[in-house]
């Protein structure tokens, strides 16, 4: 990739909400192609790597940044504020990675309420000694002044539940080769797909590129947890009775988990036109169950021990129901 000589460099920002840093690592994993990237782009905001502070970003003109890769979910008021600021300062805002796209692993917190989480972490936790029942406070007076912390919201949100998103790049993290393809397309001035599209991922499901042997007939009489089988390393996981989210997940990651002999857990999100990946997977799984009698169906489905946490591992906030409600209970 050569430098576009007369074209000004792309101004790029990478920012994280409730994130783990893996998406930033995926940007760095361009390895030697780093030279090509920096020949065509200037990074103007990236807390993990540059000393640009929030005040510097707030001072930028609107639409100063050409493209922002926002990774991480929106979990607290700081994440929400920065999402809005970056929306304002960016021409293109990309929901980068599973957390920004669908909620990701932090989205699993939507099985609990804020109160339950704070209680477990700060009060009931095994090694925590906290007789005064101290909890972190949004505003706290110390001798010297007032200290503030962001507000921890009850509900985890995706980026597009917070601001308008131009594109989605799925994956936990997105596979670096896909990022480079997208980057090249932008730098070359290629026409981008319509706003709101998923980019950097294939339209077909994982099964299309998966190298495991599969047949058209999947008749499952028993569901097994991954350690309950002697995986032969070759046969489709579903055909061995192990839940694999491949059928309901886009390709593009290089089936890296399958390469490690682990079943897919859906981080690349649903195929086109599917509004709820978990529901589609449930549908697919139900089709595979080889039973027609209610008692037998019940027996087999009981072997799926954590349906919500398995089918919605990365997508709970982005799913139709978005969070667990508190109905009949505690």
């Amino acid at each position, binding site marked *: 990739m050569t430098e576009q000589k007369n074209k000004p460099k792309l101004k790029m920002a990478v920012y994280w909400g*409730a994130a*783990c*840093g893996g*998406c*930033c*690592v*995926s940007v*760095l*994993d361009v*390895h*030697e192609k780093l030279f090509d990237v*920096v020949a065509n782009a*200037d*990074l103007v905001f990236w807390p*993990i*790597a*540059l*000393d*640009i*502070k929030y*005040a510097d970003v707030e001072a930028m003109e609107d639409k100063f940044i050409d493209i922002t890769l926002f990774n991480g979910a929106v*979990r*607290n008021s700081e994440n929400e504020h920065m999402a809005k600021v970056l929306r304002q300062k960016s021409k293109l805002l990309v929901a980068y990675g599973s957390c920004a796209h669908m909620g*990701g692993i*932090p989205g*699993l*917190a939507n099985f609990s309420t804020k109160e*339950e*989480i704070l209680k*477990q*972490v*700060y009060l009931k*936790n*095994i*090694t*925590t*000694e906290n007789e005064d029942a101290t*909890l*972190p*406070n949004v505003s*706290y007076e110390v001798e*010297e*002044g007032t*200290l503030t*912390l*962001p507000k*921890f919201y009850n509900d985890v949100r995706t980026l597009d539940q917070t601001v308008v998103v131009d594109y989605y790049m799925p994956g*936990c993290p997105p596979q670096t080769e896909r990022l480079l393809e997208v980057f090249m397309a932008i730098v070359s001035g290629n026409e981008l797909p319509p706003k709101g599209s998923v980019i950097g991922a294939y339209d077909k499901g994982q099964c299309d590129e998966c190298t495991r042997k599969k047949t058209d007939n999947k008749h499952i009489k028993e569901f097994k*947890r*991954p*350690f309950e089988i002697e*995986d032969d390393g070759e046969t489709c996981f579903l055909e061995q009775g192990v839940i694999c989210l491949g059928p309901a997940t886009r390709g593009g990651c290089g089936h*890296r*988990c399958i*390469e*490690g*002999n*682990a079943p897919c857990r859906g981080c690349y999100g649903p195929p086109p036109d599917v509004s709820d990946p978990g529901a589609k997977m449930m549908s697919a799984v139900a089709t595979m169950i080889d039973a027609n009698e209610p008692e037998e169906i019940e027996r087999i489905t009981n072997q799926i021990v*954590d349906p919500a*946490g398995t089918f919605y591992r990365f997508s709970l906030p982005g799913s139709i129901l978005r969070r667990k409600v508190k109905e009949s209970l505690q």
Partner: protein
Amino acid sequence: MKRITIDPITRLEGHGKIEIFLNDEGDVDNVYFQVPELRGFEKFCEGRPVEELPQIVTKICGVCPGCHHMASGKAVDAVYGVEPPPTAKKLRELFYMAHFVHSHIAHFYALAAPDFVVGPTAAKAERNILGVINKVGVNIGTEVIKQRRIAQEIQALIGGHQTHVVMNIPGGVRKGLTEEQRADIEKKAKGFIDFAKFSLNLFGDVVLENKEYVDLILNGPYSLKLHSMGLVDENNKVNFYDGKVRVVDTEGEEHCKYSPNDYQDFVAERVEPWSYLKFPYLKKIGWKGFVEGQDSGVYQATPLSRLNAADGMATPFAQSEYEKMFGILGGKPVHATLAMHWARLIELLYSAERSLELATDPDIIGKDLRSPLPNIPNEGIGIVEAQRGTLTHHYITDDKGLVLKANLIVGTTNNNAAICMSLKKAAQGLIKKGVEVTDGILNMIEMAFRAYDPCFSCATHSLPGEMPMIVNIREMDGTLIRTVKRK
């Protein structure tokens, strides 16, 4: 009262802000280091099948996911009451050594090196790997990227997913190595050793030969006299994957040495209303506040702490560097915060040597990858050393292996109180009445934080890409006509 806010802290993994309060004279009254993020892993792991946890907890951190995967894998084995077979253990440790190599290389070159090679108060725009390369040449930059890439490739080969590794399963690992793969890793491990030695030489040339830097390390406002924690093997040598947790006091005497199952007797955590991150402390001493000294419950768990807490390194070249470092710095234990960078390079060398040991161990291509699981799942604790501190995972499950409770004490969390104190000390030492608070001063305060190896490193700012080069133009018979130089 004047107030200086650094928000967010940068060139590290994670969110954080620093509030510095000055009194009317212009001296520092107090410094608060606040962590504004919480995600709630300890809660949302509840209800998940325990065998999924090793893949869920990698998402705590995308830079050290392997650490969580290992601690979690060990905890899950303990939940099922089994030990993996030798091949599985060694594969895990080999993966883990590559993980340490990638992380320590990246941290030193992009985080530590700028502050030492370029200078701690140099202009902001130069304080990154670009500035380092200007001084030492772009070849090194390329080599750093290459070695990191190779380490990542080994991780992907053994662990599946190159970042969020998937190799662990209750009782062992999912995939083995072929002889061809093993031979390739052996070759690469030798490359790591060479590069680690080179890095230590570089540190010697650039830092130890420079009196100002040595003075900064030994006498700058960066020392904290605290207890040191690290994992040790049965010979009390540093081990990242397995062993017992040993804590030595400020004089270097053993305070305690515990097995993972007993961790609750030795470590407790407290909560402050101004930070979402908890503050672990040594239980037997108790919490005495943000104070230093023999009687303080605050401890450190860093590369330097590991070297303090152990009696030596288990591999020969690393051992010799260990002895050299403590020789130069005046004996054990060393409390100079910036020496963490040196300790990190010694660990890099150890990881490289250990990867070669494991890659040449005949067990590494064994076929027995998993132990059977005859027991009802129950409770288990797994401890490893993460690059930035001792990492504990503790799970309690029901009899079907669904998680009821999870407790995690994460690497950097161990150091929360110490980091607060390091920042305060640095600020008090650097900001005084009459001193103009420049960006350089603020960076030197942040250096107190960076030494602890916040998860991340690796700059991405633009690299000029121009090699220092000399071209000699000669006649056909070899006579030199002209020399062209590019600096």
